[in-house]
C-alpha cells in the first residue's frame, strides 16, 4: 500500500468518507470522516466531524470542527469553534481564533489563543500567548506566558517569564523567574513564587477597585500594588498603593508607600 501515491480527498456539500492516508484533504460543507485520517495537508471549511485520530503536516479549520480522537500536526490554524477530545500535539504553532475546547491536553511549540479556549489537561509549550480568555484546567509549563485578557489556571503554572494584563485567577502556585501583572479586574491567586515580581494596578477610573487577592507571595524582589495578601515573604519588598497585607517577612529591605496597610512587619 505504501508504494502507491496517496490520493487527494475532496468533499463538498454533505459528504462523508472513510479515514485513510491522503495527500491533500479539502473538506467543504458538512463533512464526516470515519476512522483515522492521515494526510499532508488538511483544509476544512464548514462543519467537520472526524471520528478518529487526525495526523497532518499542516492543518487549517474554518468553521466548526469536532475531532473525537488525538490530533498530531506540524502546525494548526483554527478559526471558529473546535473541539478535540484527545490529545493535541502540534510541532510548531497552534493558532486558535474563536472558541476551542481541547479536552485532553496540548503540547506545542507556540500556542496562540485569540478568543476563548478551554484546555482540560496539561498544557506544555515554549510560548503561550493569550488575547482573550484562556481556561487552563490543569498544570501549565512554558518558557513564556503572555496574556492580555483573562487567564484562569486550575493547577500549577511554571514559566520563566509570566506577563498578564487583565484578570488572573489561579487555584495553584504560579512559579516563574519573572512575573509582571497589570490588574484590570478582580483577580485571585493562591500562591506566587518567583525571583522578580511586579504587580501594578491598571489605568482608568475604576482601577483602584481591581484587587488581586493572594494567600502567599514568596520572592526575592517584590513590588506590589492593589494586592490583598495574607503573607508576603522576600528579600526586598515594596508595598505600594492599595495594598493590604496581614504579615510581611523581609530580609534586606522593606518599603511602604503611602496608602498601604500592613499588619505585621518582621525582619528575619
Amino acid at each position, binding site marked *: 500500500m505504501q508504494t502507491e501515491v496517496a490520493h487527494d480527498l475532496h468533499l463538498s456539500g454533505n459528504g462523508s468518507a472513510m479515514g485513510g492516508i491522503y495527500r491533500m484533504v479539502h473538506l467543504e460543507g458538512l463533512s464526516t470522516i470515519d476512522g483515522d485520517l492521515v494526510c499532508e495537508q488538511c483544509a476544512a471549511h464548514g462543519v467537520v466531524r472526524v471520528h478518529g485520530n487526525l495526523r497532518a503536516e499542516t492543518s487549517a479549520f474554518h468553521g466548526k470542527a469536532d475531532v473525537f480522537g488525538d490530533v498530531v500536526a506540524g502546525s494548526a490554524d483554527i478559526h471558529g469553534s473546535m473541539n478535540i477530545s484527545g490529545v493535541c500535539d502540534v510541532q510548531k504553532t497552534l493558532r486558535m481564533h474563536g472558541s476551542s475546547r481541547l479536552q485532553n491536553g496540548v503540547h506545542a511549540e507556540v500556542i496562540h489563543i485569540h478568543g476563548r479556549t478551554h484546555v482540560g489537561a496539561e498544557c506544555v509549550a515554549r510560548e503561550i500567548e493569550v488575547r482573550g480568555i484562556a481556561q487552563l484546567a490543569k498544570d501549565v509549563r512554558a518558557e513564556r506566558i503572555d496574556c492580555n485578557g483573562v487567564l484562569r489556571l486550575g493547577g500549577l503554572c*511554571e514559566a*520563566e517569564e509570566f506577563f498578564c494584563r487583565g484578570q488572573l485567577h489561579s487555584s495553584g502556585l504560579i*512559579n*516563574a*523567574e519573572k512575573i509582571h501583572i497589570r490588574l484590570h479586574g478582580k483577580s485571585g491567586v493562591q500562591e506566587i*513564587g*518567583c*525571583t*522578580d515580581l511586579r504587580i501594578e494596578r491598571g489605568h482608568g477610573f475604576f482601577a483602584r477597585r481591581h484587587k488581586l487577592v493572594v*494567600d*502567599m507571595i*514568596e*520572592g*526575592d524582589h517584590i513590588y506590589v500594588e492593589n494586592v490583598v495578601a*495574607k*503573607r508576603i*515573604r*522576600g*528579600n526586598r519588598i515594596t508595598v505600594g498603593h492599595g495594598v493590604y497585607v496581614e*504579615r510581611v*517577612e523581609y530580609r534586606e529591605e522593606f518599603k511602604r508607600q503611602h496608602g498601604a496597610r500592613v499588619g505585621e512587619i518582621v525582619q*528575619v
Partner: protein
Amino acid sequence: MEQELISKKELLDLMGISYGQLYRWKRKDLIPEEWFIRKSTFTGQETFFPREKILSRIEQIKQLKDDLSLDELARRFSPDPADIALSGEDMVNRSIVSEQAWRVYRLEHPNTKVCSFRDVVFASVVHRALASGNVGLDEARNALRTLEQSITMFSDFRMRIACVRKLGVSVWVVQGTDGQLVIDPDAKLVFDADVSECIEDVKLRLM
C-alpha cells in the same frame, strides 16, 4: 514512616539561599514535587521538606551549579540515567553493594560483567537486605528474582519490597509505594525497603 521535616523558612536560613533560587530549582525539577509537603500551622499553610533529603540535595546543587548548567544537573537527578554501566568492582568501590551482595548477584547472573542502572539498583536492594542482618543469602537471591520479575509491573521503580517470614518460610512481596501491606499476625516482617529510596541512595553514590 515518619521522617523529620524542615520548614521552608528554616531551610532558606540554614542553606543561605533565596526564595527565587528554591523556586527556580523546583521549576527545573531539581527538587521533586513530592518533597514539598504542605501542612497547616498556626500561621497558616506552610511548606515543609524531608529534612535529610532536601539538605543533601541542596548541598549538591550548590556545589555543582557553578560547573554544570541547571539542565545538566536535572539530568543527573532524574530517575533513570540511561547510560550508566558499572562493573562489580566499581559498585563495591563506590559502596553501592558489599562484596557479599555482589557474590549473591553473581550467583544469579554468572555472566554479568557490566550492570545497567536497573541492575545496579537491584544489586543495591540485595545489599540492603543482607546488610539488615535479617535476611539470609538464599533469601536475598530470591529477592533479586522477585524484583526482576516484578519490574514489568512497576516500570517506574515506584515500588516497595518486603520479606515476610512465618514458621521459617520466607516470602518476598513487591507492592506499589502507596499500597498498604497487612500481614498475618503470626508472620514476621523481616525486611522492608522502598526501591525509589534505594535509587536516591545509588544516585548519591554515583555522583
